[in-house]
């Protein structure tokens, strides 16, 4: 195997990619996924988060209050979100139907410290986004009231929980989402893209019958395959590195970038080699892609069942958590890649002979 020939193939394939410019779509796609998933998380939570909503609206929602006086009433009145009206049930519901109220609560006559539970009936508008928001705001008042009732009845508890006091005021932030899901996902995508690419590059040479031309030069099939593998592998740290840079620009601090890139590069190589093996075996794109994507899903699910998997490691490294296992996992992955590499070389040689004699 000559390094020069491998380099030539690598240059040819990378040039082809740049020439077609559709790799831009792949990058756009990653951006889209990132935007969409964080939007989904942040947007949805903001939508339902009472404290976030208050910033945008000074709106008060009208609540019809029917039935006995209770502690709940005080909580509703003290909330900045509600205006509480004393009403009868029937006109209250009619007003709700006309959207003159946002909700109606009905409190029955049950003593707070009685044996029976207090059963409140809450009337909301069906299929209405505002009802969902009012629902979230009401939940706070109900939880406070439930706490009071529990206090009143606390003497009747027979198993006492360990009590913990938490520091006050920790708002929503998306720490676990960003570091525990988004970053591993973003860094995993270049690996997927590269390994899908290797299948396209290899099967294309077979299906367009350009492999014969390549093999009629002094180039060997192993050199061709390794050139392609390297072309795909080179793209991984570039894309992953770009992600890390973008995240840092956004004020998301990622620790241990170098170690993360090493981890990403190592498990990408494994996936690319598996892709190459599948492509060499099938020599036909749709079968190879189909089998390969199923294999990737299986491998990924399997890896995720073990703590200390590469994605878990990325989370830990990115947050700056001390990790003991990283070099063990890294060397394990590199060993797997080495074994696969030998397998790919052997198989390429064999199938190259077969290809020429066919």
């Amino acid at each position, binding site marked *: 195997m000559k390094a020069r020939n491998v380099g030539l193939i690598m240059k040819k394939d990378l040039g082809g990619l740049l020439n077609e410019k*559709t790799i831009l779509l792949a990058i756009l796609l990653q951006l889209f996924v990132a935007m969409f998933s964080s939007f989904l998380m942040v947007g949805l939570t903001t939508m339902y988060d009472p404290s976030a909503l208050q910033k945008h609206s000074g709106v008060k929602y009208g609540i019809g209050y029917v039935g006995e006086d209770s502690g709940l009433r005080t909580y509703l009145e003290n909330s900045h979100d509600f205006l509480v009206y004393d009403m009868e049930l029937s006109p209250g519901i009619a007003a709700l139907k006309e959207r003159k109220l946002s909700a109606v609560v009905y409190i*029955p006559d049950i003593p707070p410290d009685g044996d029976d539970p207090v059963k409140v009936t809450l009337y909301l508008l069906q299929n209405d986004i505002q009802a969902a928001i009012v629902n979230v705001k009401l939940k706070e008042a109900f939880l406070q009231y439930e706490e009071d009732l529990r206090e009143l009845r606390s003497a009747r508890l027979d198993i006492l*929980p360990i009590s913990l006091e938490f520091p006050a005021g920790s708002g929503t932030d998306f720490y676990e989402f960003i570091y525990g899901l988004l970053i591993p996902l973003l860094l995993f995508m270049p690996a997927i893209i590269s390994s899908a690419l290797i299948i396209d590059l290899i099967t294309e040479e077979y299906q367009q019958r350009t492999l014969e031309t390549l093999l009629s030069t002094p180039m060997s099939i192993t050199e061709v395959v390794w050139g392609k593998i390297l072309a795909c592998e080179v793209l991984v740290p570039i894309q992953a590195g770009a992600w890390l840079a973008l995240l840092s620009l956004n004020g998301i601090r990622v620790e241990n970038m170098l170690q993360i890139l090493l981890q990403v590069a190592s498990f990408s190589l494994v996936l690319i080699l598996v892709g190459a093996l599948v492509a060499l075996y099938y020599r036909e794109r749709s079968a190879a892609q189909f089998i390969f994507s199923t294999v990737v899903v299986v491998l990924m699910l399997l890896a995720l069942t073990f703590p200390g998997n590469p994605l878990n490691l990325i989370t830990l490294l990115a947050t700056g958590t001390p990790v003991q296992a990283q070099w063990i996992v890294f060397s394990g992955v590199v060993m797997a890649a080495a074994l696969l590499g030998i397998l790919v070389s052997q198989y390429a040689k064999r199938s190259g002979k077969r290809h020429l004699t066919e």
Partner: protein
Amino acid sequence: MGKDVLPLAVLLFIILVAVTGNTAQSGLHLQDNLYSVGVDDPSLVGVIGSDSRFVIYEGSPVSLYQNRESFDVIIIRGDVFAPDTKKGRAAVKTLQRDYDSYINIIYSQQEDLFASYPLWIDVQNVKSELDFVATQSGSRVAAPARSSTPPVPEGPVIEIVPPSSEVGIPLEDLRQGLVESQGTDSQISRYTDMFGEESPFGTFKTPHQLSPPLPFDSIILIFVFIFPLYFTSQFFMMSIMNERLERRGEVLLSTPLRPWVIIAGKALPYCAGMVAITLILSLWVGESVSILLPIIPVILFFLASALIIGMISRSFKELSFISIFFSTVATSYLFFPTIFANVHIISLISPLTLVIFTIQGEAFTISQYFYSTALFFLTSIVLFYIGITNFREERLFSHARLLTRISDFIATGLSLRHPYLSIFIVTVLAIPFVFMVQMMLLVLFFNLPMPLSLILLIVSAAFVEEVAKSVGIFTLLSRKQKFLGWGRIIIISAVTAAAFLFGEKLLLLVTLSQITESVFGNILFLSLGVLWIPFLLHFVTVLIVAVSLRLKGTAGYVPGLIVASIVHCIYNLYFILGWFA
């Protein structure tokens, strides 16, 4: 399909099922050992020990306090301390969630269940008779309450019997249900506590269970339905691509068969396969076969897009990139609205919401069906039409660049002999796509904070419309810059504007009446009021692009588009928000 795929596929599928089951059992280990927690009380291990995110260290209060720098959170004598860092706060939050579920487990074991769960809420949903009328002027759904006197209903008041104060569910059933609902801790609850556990008693809930409805299970189930469709459409895409390899398709084209027969023949097995898979799946999960109805337009849309993607990509890598891109965008268009399935009418823009309704055992009406599938039917028809007219030798085997090829495809529909008519048709055909993209934008911007979402929507909606309107003119002028004299440019612009207005109006008449009545709809489909004003707007903006193209050639396209979008935005701002007025 290639050699021995099937046995391996079956084997992989069996492994996949086994692995999925295994993963569901052991959970995903993505965030294991993320936080280190120091405790002085060994019994706390029982509270947080089951959460794999924590590494627990035991120590004396003094040693914990001295080493507090090396922990993310420490618990000393029942007090929780954490450094004031992002990670520290996140650790406290996670700890608090674990503690809450621990408390709930203890509470549900109490002898006197109503001492630990003293408050129960019965949620009754009331259907409003004033469905989206209130939003017509862009005002809030429920009028904000201001006055101190209670509102008086205008309509008749129906007498309602006060609900009974009885719980109506046996105590042990309640306990059982509470214990069971502890187990439904989904992965989502790690990231947000907005979507709490579902109540096992339907509308009967503890305050803790009072959360916005998220049809999580149904969404997962839909994925099961959509996933095979992706794969099958991939195969169709490849089968189209294969005809283009080494000009293999020449044989087919030389037969007297018409292009539509060839395409229909190639698509039929895949289409039948998809229908069969959907049927089998719906029987397998025990759902009604009527799930097929909303899925059919999705199948058609996938096939039509696969045809076009298979016809335009030049190489395998391009095929991969475009198809992955397409399927991600399509997935988000299909899935994202379904999250709001029980919350907002907007969820109906995706046919999959109808699938959720079916799974939930609700029927959907014909108008709902029409509303959510019309765009899919229309765009599929247009895409198939483009594919069929371009299924010719010079298009299939060309090696031109992607954008050139797309514009070639459109050019097939343009005839230089009837430029006005063809421009008219191309513009009308572009409208379903404009609506689809704008719907996507609507969904994307839908719950960003209000002024931001409005501005983003105005700008992007204007841009999308300008791109769509300029497609015909761009194709004509990029082919023959001198083809259009100045007089012709003016007529062409007028024709485009008229076509756009006509198509928009036509499509709106048949669908979307509900969306257009909200404030967002007002922006997207503003140009519907008095006819001559929007006509003038479309005319002016198309003219800007056309003139820019005529003067500078293709280099003038993007600047022209930007200027036209700015004009469009100013117009929108003036008319909706009344700015500069």
